[in-house]
């Protein structure tokens, strides 16, 4: 079947199988930041924005994105660059495999709530698993960024 959508601001038309997952579709279109970690919607690594809302692309058929806008970290480099340096300062990137997923969800969080509390951050990112960092350094990084904006 034919699929038309907007991927990171670009109009894309492609032939797909009806059972193609959005995760595989975006990866095959160069968006390799999107990772598969579990296949059962438990890890959050495959988070993309569908019409601006975070979704798990491993549990979304590509066909569901027809006519809609899909954004991956490839399309949000500047917005991410604003804050990821603070996470790097904590060393909390670690292996990095989960980073794109939680960075995408952090972007979604900050768009919804520009001034979240620590508990807001923990709750919003609860679905983004990380096995390396113990989470605390990621929180310190985001907190340091938010504090830096307050001057």
């Amino acid at each position, binding site marked *: 079947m034919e699929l038309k959508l907007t991927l990171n601001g670009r109009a894309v038309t492609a032939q797909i199988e009806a059972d193609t997952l959005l995760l595989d579709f975006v990866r095959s279109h160069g968006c*390799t*930041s*999107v*990772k598969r*970690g*579990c*296949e*059962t919607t*438990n*890890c959050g*690594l495959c988070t993309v924005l569908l019409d601006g809302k975070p979704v798990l692309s491993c549990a979304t058929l590509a066909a569901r994105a027809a006519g809609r806008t899909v954004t*991956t*970290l*490839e399309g949000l*480099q500047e917005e*991410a*660059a604003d804050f*990821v*340096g603070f*996470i*790097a*300062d*904590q*060393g*909390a*990137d*670690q*292996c*990095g*495999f*989960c*980073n*794109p997923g939680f*960075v995408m969800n952090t972007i979604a969080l900050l768009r919804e709530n520009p001034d979240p509390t620590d508990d807001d951050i*923990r*709750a919003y*990112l*609860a*679905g*983004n*698993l*990380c*096995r*390396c*960092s*113990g*989470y*605390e*350094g990621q*929180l310190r990084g985001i907190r340091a960024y938010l504090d830096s904006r307050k001057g």
Partner: protein
Amino acid sequence: MEEKQYRSVGKSVRKKDSLQLLLGKGVFLEDVVPPGALVVKLLRSPHANAIVEQIDTATAAKVPGVVGIYTWQDVPQHRFTNAGQTFPEPSPDDRLILDRHLRFVGDPVAIVAAEDEKAANRAMQLIKVTYQVLEPVLDPRQAKDAPVLVHPEDTWHAKVDVGGDNRRNLVASEVSGHGDVDRVMESCDIVIEHTYHTPACQQAMMETFRTYTALDRYGRLYVLSSTQIVFHVRRILARALGIPKSKIRVEKPRIGGGFGAKQSAISEVYPAFVTWKTGRPAMLIFTREECQIAGSPRHEMEIRVKLGADRQGNIRALDLYTLSNTGAYGEHGPTTVGLSGHKSIPLYTGGLEAHRFAFDVVYTNLQPAGAYRGYGATQGIFAVESAVNELAERLGMDPTLIREKNMVREGMTMPAYYNEISRACALDRCLEHCKEMFRWEERYPVRDMGNGKVRAAGVAMAMQGSAVSNVDVGSATVKLGDDGCYTLIIGAADMGTGCDTILSQMVAEHMDCPVDQVTVFGADTDASPYDSGSYASSTTYLTGKAVEKACTQLKQQLCAIAAELMDCQPEDTLFQGDRVICQEGSRWVSLEEISYKAQCCNQHAAMVTASHTSPVSPPPFMVGMVEIELDKLTGEVSILDYMAVVDCGLPINPALARIQAEGGIVQGIGMALSESVTYNPQGRPMEDSFLQYKIPSRLDMGKLRVEFEHSHEPTGPFGAKSIGEIVINTPAPALAHAIYRATGVWHRTLPITPEQIAMGVPEG
């Protein structure tokens, strides 16, 4: 203690790859391989113990896109071990790429290679296998000398005598000790004797096992793999495939976590075999389910502790027996078990008069175990620390005071740790610091919150080692580039831990230049100097020392080149970072001039490779304290605060050391409260996805606080010891302690789930 001030070491430098990772650049295996590789899939055994009677692949082979289907009849018959260990591996040679005898649910029956995943999956469904189903050995307690043998084959081979015997389902067996433990035990006022049980746990690194293989321009086998051990993988593949090591090149890209899982060659042999057979690029990516059922989890252990003490709380004797379940294959079986005693008993070297440590490691028809952060020490420390907490409660003594009385201290010889001397030990300061930070006196007493909830605290100490002494080798090549920058080439594997950056900080310190002036390359068996790999808490300690040696020699080489430029004697020169000066007079040449001179009419290589091995494995030490709130009705445990103080010598990069500690603590919390690999009565694993296998999320870990007490390890680079593994060891005993304090029930089996807490009945 006054510490030397450094320019690059001891600083929280950002990881060199951090922005690439955080911005999602394509740096992982699946991101960097060219398209068009054959998709490799494994048909896996549905039975725990079975023989392939017949296998019919004819129909499956007709599926369009299928390129090859391979069975036990197609593979070489050299038994090998997947364990990434220095040759000769203590782990027995007990595997074939595909075996007619299937030994666990998930053991590969056939390899399918196809143009795409759909064709491979379709073909897997069409392979017809007739199994002769055999009685499995599923209980490790019944495995030794059981009538059913997991490895009855004559070709089973142990290269090292570790007391194993495949005719007894035994991989290893040993007894060691000092003093007359039975006599001392008899004269003790109090003897605590209990059995502790730790299940298999999955590393659950976010990136599953994966390997890409292709033939290179010389027709050699090129292997790109998510591995901690490129050199061991090369050797394992050479043996498994029956081809020379010189025909194989192994490289690693960025690795999405390892934790020891990738210290075994779990995924490599299958695509390598396909490429060697077909000449075509091939790739195998494990699903999460495969990772869960056919990975390389922690060894299940049952540890009987007998602890003898006097009424004042002086620990006089420790007697441990560990039964370790290695599953269907023996990877890391003979070695992990040793740590359960050798890295738990020495914590109480203080007044210990005698100890005994015995173990058996048995085969069962369950998922083969492997290396997982902590490597047996985690299991042993859960048992010994729990026993010490039980002693404290029995005596009505503060458990921190019992530890102060008995702990190992700097300068002590540790009989249970190969008689090594504890030359750098701040364990006493760690405990004092942690007590103060945690406010132990205030929080140790149990507090009923009046709403069905109770607050309580627990404590545990831990140790580990730094590298495998007298065995493993770390190496580093450091070379000067055109513009006065350095390239560091290593065979160790940065799996997210930051060793690329940490080792670069060391180069920068030695060469007196900014860290940004150091580029890192690794790991690649064609280009890197030999390194055992990144495991056994070795990279900072061992490879770091190789960096020190290489830099020391490189400075001499650069001075020799500079001496020619300045027409003076090398011994009259002095290396000053950005220049070399001639001490007679005021002449100097810049690094850049030296690098150009190195390229023109030059006899001295501006490059040095150095290797290092260590006769000792200095333990890092740690104290962890936890405060929980426990719901007496539901058994739910909420962690409020977890505080820890670590002595890893000098932290080379404090931010990265802290993240290691925080990450390890959270993994340890998962092991203590929720993670476990269990099987149904037929031996089928129950937790085959993250739906059932619950690793901690951001909401499950409370607040963490980690601080450091420095010591100076004389054999380590800049006084450093290790940190990678020790950090997982305190949560299980500290949480079991806190749960006892809240409920009056000792839980000696992990994980301690809400169900077990709610159903728990106090003893006596």
